[in-house]
């Protein structure tokens, strides 16, 4: 067996050699490589049925020669020479574009924002999380169907022919639980970079709460209603439609409905959207992006007005813009593309649950929304009538139809509390006049 994790982290000489070899063939090149380990355990109903450990590693080489960008990746860094050849060959096929150079080294803070030195990758720790979730799940009459706990850590190295040599360590913990009561399902999850920031007790309790409390719901007639979307339900609609429209590449290639909207109101007043890559203890935080550009806060929308789009180097050079440090990668072995770190929706928080409205915990099918026009129809999961801040009668089932862009103009309130959902930090939102289709209309 051969695994890179032990070897390359001790000696990175091969990266220097790779850069030297590559410099003989192309104008510029960069190396993005990393390794990660994880331990997880999964429940089948209330018993642990499997425990897993994984080791992964990856290397991505990108070359730029006369404006032609080539790339290749492999999860065997020992074969970096073949990977370099494949990257150079890939560049020969690409259409040349304006290219003003890879970034030069800059001072970077030495503290890793999303690394918990106390996190140990031990199966017993995952076992403890599962036990805690199961104990708190017993608070409500619902059966646990499945659950998992996962601990991970990773190391990244980024180097380029301009002299950058950055490293980054990160950790992650995630837990989830699913439950059922009759034909009523509930699920909850939590994730964090630091082990102390995870709340398995709440996850267990909420999963069985939603399963049991949603049972026996009644139908509602078709009509327009005021809604409260939980951060989870909101994240689904926001991430599938609205955020891709802020991607500079989509903007300049004719794939964004917001392309011509800079300087105009695109949401309700009082609403802001920004990406803050420097939040301590957030999983997404990073000092430099996947191309070695220093990250910074981007204010996309301030008080309802659209002010900025996100760029990586390639898109910025092509369209005469500046990189916003928004290049991200899907994994250790992947090409850079435009993304974000901690995408935040913000505004004045208030009590949005006092007046009677339908609370929606999550939605089914948000990925089927039309990403260009923003039109969507989704099935509601765990919808309730909510009043005076309390869950009232559950609603059996209904569809919500609308347009994600229009929906943002009808936001009338944000909750005081926000929650991390993947790379998003979101409050609950209250929206008026949303079209619900009942099942017996």
């Amino acid at each position, binding site marked *: 067996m051969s695994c890179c994790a032990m070897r390359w982290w001790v000696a990175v000489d091969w990266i220097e050699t790779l850069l030297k070899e590559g410099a003989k063939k192309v104008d510029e090149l960069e190396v993005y490589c990393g390794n990660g380990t994880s331990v997880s355990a999964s429940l089948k109903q209330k018993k642990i049925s499997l425990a897993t450990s994984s080791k992964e590693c990856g290397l991505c080489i990108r070359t730029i020669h006369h404006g032609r960008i080539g790339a290749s990746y492999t*999860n065997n860094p020992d074969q970096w020479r073949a990977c370099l050849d494949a990257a150079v060959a890939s560049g020969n096929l690409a259409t040349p574009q304006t290219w003003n150079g890879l970034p030069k080294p800059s001072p970077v803070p030495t503290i890793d924002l999303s690394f918990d030195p106390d996190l140990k990758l031990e199966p017993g720790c995952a076992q403890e999380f599962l036990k805690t979730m199961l104990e708190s799940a017993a608070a409500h009459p619902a059966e646990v169907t499945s659950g998992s706990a996962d601990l991970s850590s990773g190391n990244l190295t980024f180097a380029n022919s301009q002299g950058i040599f950055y490293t980054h360590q990160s950790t992650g913990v995630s837990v989830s639980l699913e439950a059922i009561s009759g034909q009523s399902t509930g699920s909850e999850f939590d994730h964090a970079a630091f082990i102390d920031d995870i709340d398995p007790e709440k996850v267990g309790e909420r999963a069985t709460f939603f399963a049991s409390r949603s049972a026996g719901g009644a139908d509602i007639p078709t009509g327009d209603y005021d809604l409260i979307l939980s951060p989870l339900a909101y994240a689904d609609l926001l991430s599938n439609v609205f955020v891709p429209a802020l991607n500079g590449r989509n903007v300049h*290639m004719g794939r964004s409905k917001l392309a011509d909207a800079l300087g105009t109101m695109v949401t309700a007043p009082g609403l802001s959207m920004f990406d803050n890559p420097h939040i301590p203890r957030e999983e997404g935080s990073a000092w430099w992006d996947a191309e070695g550009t220093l990250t910074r806060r981007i204010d996309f929308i301030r008080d309802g007005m659209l002010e900025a789009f996100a760029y990586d180097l390639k898109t910025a050079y092509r369209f005469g813009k500046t990189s916003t440090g928004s290049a991200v990668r899907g994994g250790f072995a992947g090409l850079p593309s435009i993304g974000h770190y901690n995408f935040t929706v913000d505004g004045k928080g208030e009590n949005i649950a006092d007046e009677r409205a339908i609370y929606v915990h999550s939605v089914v099918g948000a990925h089927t929304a039309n990403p260009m026009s923003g039109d969507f129809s989704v099935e509601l999961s765990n919808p309730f009538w909510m009043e005076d801040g309390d869950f009232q009668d559950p609603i059996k089932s209904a569809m919500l139809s609308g347009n994600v862009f229009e929906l943002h103009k009808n936001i009338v309130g944000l909750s005081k509390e926000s929650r991390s959902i993947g790379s998003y930090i979101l409050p609950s939102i209250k929206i008026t006049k949303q079209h619900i289709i009942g099942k017996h209309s």
Partner: protein
Amino acid sequence: MNIMPEPPGIRYYDLRHVNGHHTHIDIDNGIVESAGTSFFNKAVIRVLGPRGWGIVQIDNYAPGSRKEFENILNHATKLAKITEESVILGDVRHGMLLTVPVKEDCRSISIEEKSALLSEIERSAHNPLVVNRRANYTEKIEQIHFLDSSGNEYSYEMCRSGFSVMAVASRNGNIQMGHERDHSIHGFNLRHQAEKGKQAADIAVALLDAGAAKGGKMHAVLDPELAGVFAHEAVGHASEGDLIQEGNSVLKGRTGQKIANEQLTIVDDPGIHEFGFDPVDAEGVAVGRTEIIRRGVINAFLHNRETMASVGNGVPGHARAMAGEPPLVRMSNTFIETGDATDEEIFAECKKGIFLKGSRGGQVDPGRGVFQFNAEYGYLIENGECTKMIRDVSLSGEILTTLHGITLCGKTRLMNPGYCGKGGQSVPVSDGAPHVLLCDAVVGGSGLD
């Protein structure tokens, strides 16, 4: 390597090692954004300890000495110590089908030629109202090696390749898209496809004048692609043995129960030569046809070895896995069997309703028994004829009641390739059906009249 007997404390082990490479080409508005080849090597080793599974996932795996392999088994055995569930593996039939003959091997064509052919498809989407054309080619070749402690060992190669083309049309702030794709296990498929770009553009432009669907209950005719997604979402997932075992499917305990009209038979078959084909499943089990619903009655669940033993009432050979990931119970090629209605009879019987074409995907909550899926576009049906074009139509339904609404099935079945996500793994699948009539469908749309 030589298969060795299970060491102490191990009831069973298996190894699934996948080596491969991936070639892609991305052309965006005439610009070759990226094109090239990347490489991967991933393995997963599973050990069944006294109770449950210990699983080790390794990148960059190289078969080594017996001692090295024993070290991995020991590591997995230690992991298995925290398990509590007593996992039993069902007795199954092992064996592998022949792989699919390939008409033209992707490896025999240069990437320059592939890029030129893709470019033709992308250029054919040109239209004065089209503001973005994008075409992608993807080709994944995998060498799979499986062995287990019972002496089963299989090696085979799979190549999956194909393309997608998208056109975005825009007029006065209205922005719509059309999408065409084809993926295949039968070899290189980029030749003679240039018209696909034009088809995507024509749909995008036509949608600029389409109205929003009015939500509510109505009869719907589903085209073979959308009816296939219906079978996948409404029935396929809920019949997966792991969900039944966990108690997270409304189909649990309902074997023999009639949940659909007699016309309806829904099948999953990894052995047919469609995009979800596997010659052997990810646990080395022989694959074959499973009739999930036979003439309206719940007949058989999809199983792996563990759920076969635990749940029963079904057919094993449905374990599938991404490279380096543990196998899960999955669908492969899922379809509604043909019926005896002509398409004319289906539209005439519908009389007034909606005809839905293409798919933007779907999702299901199998425990609650509620599903949702979305058509690319459709037409209103009036007096049995298609009239006005409509856009952004979703359907939702309940597994235990909606299937009764399928009252007619057409005579010709078509399969469509795609990918299905579950447990963080995406695997190739195909879905298909003839045209079907779905009575009293719940349609979601934001149109008001």
